[in-house]
């Protein structure tokens, strides 16, 4: 029984991760006017997180504020924040990973 619960839990968390990951990636795929991930973050993250939270609260309320629902959506919230953080960190690494030639002052 415990093993079954563990497997169900694992599948649920994995599926949640995939859905949240897809929803965030979709934003980056659909925004074609800029490649700057910080700009995308600044413009779309507030809407994304507000909608996600509103949906979560709505479903929690539908499920009569059960602890399972609260914990589940808290995990969803944390996963979403971590994925956004990962996107920005990888982008920061990309934009800082370039060599700048020093000034060649001895050259004419």
């Amino acid at each position: 029984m415990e093993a079954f619960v563990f497997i169900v839990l694992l599948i649920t968390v994995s599926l949640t991760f995939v859905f949240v990951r897809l929803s965030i990636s979709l934003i980056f795929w659909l925004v074609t006017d800029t490649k700057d991930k910080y700009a995308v973050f600044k413009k779309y993250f507030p809407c994304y997180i507000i909608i996600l939270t509103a949906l979560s609260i709505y479903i929690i309320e539908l499920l009569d504020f059960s602890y399972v629902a609260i914990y589940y959506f808290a995990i969803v919230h944390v996963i979403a924040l971590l994925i956004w953080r990962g996107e920005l960190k990888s982008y920061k690494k990309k934009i800082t990973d370039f060599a700048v030639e020093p000034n060649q002052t001895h050259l004419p």
Partner: protein
Amino acid sequence: MKKVILFIAAVLFSTLFYEKSIGLNLCIFSVLTVIILFINNKNDFKTKDAIFYTALYLGTGIAVFFHDSSLTIMANLVAFFTLIGRLSQNKTSIYVNWLNGLYTTIAGWFHRNFAINETTQSVEPKTDIDYLHLAKIIIIPSIIVIIFIGLYQNGNQLFSELINKIDFSFFNIQWVLFAGLGYYLFSNIYQPVIVEPATSEDIALGNSLLKTSKFSIPKLKKENQLGIILIAMLNVLIVIFLITDVTFILTNLDIRASVFSEQVHSGINALIASIVVAIIILLYVFRGDLNFHKENAIVKRLAFTWILLNILLVLSIAVKNGQYIYYFGLTYKRIGVLIYLILAITGLVTTLNKINTIKNIWYLIRLNTKVAFFVLIISSLVNWDYQITHYNFNYAKSMDVPYLIELSDNNTLLLKEQLDQNELSAEHASRIENKYYNYMLELENNSWQEWQYDNFKL
């Protein structure tokens, strides 16, 4: 220091709200929020605006203590978002304040950690915390200590007894997780953030209407003609309607209440819609360059007349609603109609001002949203259940006692008082007694976090 304050606030948050219903706790939470915000945003609190919104927020918090109702809790929540939004940027419209307040509450901490420095395109420097190391120095020693405790327990009887005496039943994981939620919430709000580009665009968007490059006199003349004919016809129509309406009210002073009921039910919805349509028509006619046309005096005067006649229409609805309340008693729906009428009059007056001073549509939206906010706050300060019951028992010609019994517990003490003074049917008396008994039981079982003003009347 900051983290210590947030930690204390988190512990208080869990103490106040974990498995507790709303009462004194929301009032204390409001004070706690203001303290946290004040500690971190002292400069922002120097403005009169911030002090005013803080007072409104605290006022709704106190109102929850005096009469715990859904409206008051909602007003407290809206005031909370407004205050946080106002501290994040004080020059924006109130709806942008709500957006900023909501965003700060949900993800302020995360946003601040990824605050972008525009000039260098880099994340603002933060001290890196080695979480792995932190986990190692907590988890590894803890595991080893637990293993050694197990070993020593077998070696020494006295030590074993000592260990067995330690009782961890007080430790509640749910309580700790709730405190974690509190810590997250306070970490988010302690330094409000803004949503871009909504905030900067709202600041850039003024209130004044500007002449467009498409300004064309022949086109405007046609628009002017259309405006004059349309609004003049609507004026004539509304005058005829008002004459018949006033005649009806004056000649039917002693009419049966049921006629008013029918009038109010069938008429008010249509009239409410007509006022909204009136504002939309005026906004359409005065949407652009007609405001700058030299020959717009007549259409403007007609528009002002129509607005004033619409205000008269609102007053006539108010009179009908007032009579309906007098005959049938006060109810939430009837109070809702009155609040709608206040908002409609505000909408009409601001539309008049918009046309007179040549403002854009954002001016109307900003001002009316603000008015709606203040109406919400003011209405949340009133104990409506008590007022409805008080009015119906003392002034109304007839009333629906089951309706009063079904209202929230805010009127229970008054109902009991009225039961002692008036003669009610056995069924109603029994239901009131039952309600009173349950309420007394609830008040007695309230923990200090759930206390209400009624607790002090016991």
